């Protein structure tokens, strides 16, 4: 299929990550009494952003990067 699924996944996770980071930075710290005093939006937003970036990188490399020698990218079809 022409669409590498890692691109949309990377995109949505990067968007969620950025949203949570920005919200985490500007939100009222009192909010985080509920999450044991951890600014969970900031922390988890960062994790999501890193994951999203990795997926975007892998997806973009396979879709737009140089083609591997074997166009199927793996073992031949049976």
């Amino acid at each position, binding site marked *: *299929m022409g669409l590498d699924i890692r691109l949309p996944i990377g995109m949505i996770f990067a968007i969620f990550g950025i*949203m949570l980071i920005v919200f985490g930075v500007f939100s009222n710290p009192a909010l*985080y009494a509920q999450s*044991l005093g951890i600014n*969970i*939006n900031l922390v988890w937003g960062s994790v999501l952003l890193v994951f999203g970036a990795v997926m975007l990188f892998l997806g973009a490399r396979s879709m737009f990067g140089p083609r591997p020698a074997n166009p199927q990218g793996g073992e031949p079809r049976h």
Partner: protein
Amino acid sequence: MGLTTIDWVIMAVYFAFVLGIGAALQRYMKTSADFFLAGRSIPAWVCGLAFISANLGAQEVIGMGASGAKYGILTSHFYWIGAIPAMVFVGVFMMPFYYGSRARSVPEYLRLRFDEKTRGLNAISFATMTIFSSGISMYAMAKLIQTLHFLDAPFRRFGIPQAWIFHTGIIVSALVVLTYIYLGGLTSAIYNEVLQFFLIVAGFIPLVWLGLKNVGGWSGLKLALGPSYMHSWIGLGSPHTNRLGVEWFGLTMGLGFVLSFGYWCTDFLVVQRAMAADSMASARRTPLIAAVPKMLFPFLVILPGLIAIALPTEPPAILNGPQGSAVRTPTGQGLIPAKLDATTGQPVLDNSGRPQLDYDLAVPNLLLHYFPTGILGLGLTALLASFMSGMAGNVTAFNTVWTHDIYEPYIKPNAGDAHYLMMGRLATIFGIALSIAGAYLATRFNNIMDMLQLVFAFVNAPLFATFLLGMFWKRATGHGAFIGLLSGTLAAAAHHALTIPAEAIPGVKGGWLSVLHTYPSEMAQNFWTAILAWTTCFVVTILVSLVTKAPDESRLVGLVYSLTERPQEGNLRWYKRPAYLGVAILGVTVLLNFIFR
């Protein structure tokens, strides 16, 4: 609870992506093979994640958390002796026949291997089952949205009656799933399942992390709950010394062998994901790749239940009831409230007069407990994603079986490919319409759903015996398979009619003809029903096969083990070989069983 703009935006972004994936894939849907089989072009890891995600519906996420709260670590048996060995078996031993036969569905394999009537029986019962499963998923989601009250405020603001929250939940989920499957077929369902898989993981890891931190880690959990919650094998010597009420033999044979192999090896809902793979090697790796995260899922879906019940019980809280009235909730345990009767609003009592707990709320309540606004949107999106992936899995399995195994052979054979592609899209529409009808049926008659699930259990229990004999014994005949399946189903029904779990009233729980035997728990009764059904089907199929005419061996090449060439895998690197992968996965599973014994 306080949902703010950011939570709504997160949910909106998710819906936009789900629909966007469907729209982006629409232009690739040219033939019926594109629509029903994703053109057999999906890489193994994508199929693998879709393979578990299709099963990761409401039952899994809400239900496993509920079982964790009720039974503790014993729930891990559904994974570590249930799903994993079965997934390894289907990948290593069965996939060569499913994928190699070029059958487009599981019922179609049955026609190739046995005969038309066996396929018809399987196709019709399976199609009915998928419709009701997706209806139940829809119902459960709408009910949850209602129970969590997170749509109450916006509905009040726009002056929409609160009764519409339930309808909105049903209609919106139905429309979203309909749109993306109609546009992109199985590819769209698989791609969205992979997205849903990552979202569920992303929503649940922080939940478990915060929860474990709060209760003082593993040792704190142990201290709060005591040994009966914390062991998976100790106490299985007798049904009276563990929370499941089953002894080890019933558990390993009933759950580990019959039920799990029956589901993971023969249910087209999951097998379809592997059939979409781009090569035989990928198809065989699909369930094995799926087994790796599946092995770790107990930590993600069972632990929240344990944490929810281990937390200190809060004093009776005042909640916003329907129409904004204040309701005093009776005491539950931990974060799990007492179960309230849907019509009277009174607590439901068990036989000894204690209030029953509403275990299904374990996971949602934990989410509300730890997640502030922001990540709460992510958590709720994860829940919505799980409901929708469960529903979509059923819908794609339904449209394929309907088109290839009911419409094409019995209603309109030999029409062109474009016609069947159109029928697949139509089937998506009326499949979802029927699911909506099923969801509303569930609101009217609670028992109807229980009864239907019971009937499906009777139909499913013997199925694995048929496949086992079909794939590994070339002498098995079509008449044998058909009569074996029917007698297995009858045996299951008869066993259920004559036995009853302890403390139950004869009726939908069993004993509706007469009570010959009482099981210590419902679980034990289910497992033994399955064991009996499987054995009956196995024996009857063999006996009938021996007295009927042997099938023509030339017809069975590629369908039966002894007449099929072993798949070539000499050119694969070791970590891509199904057998090696399978052994490694089983090794880790044994280790997990040992650690959490």
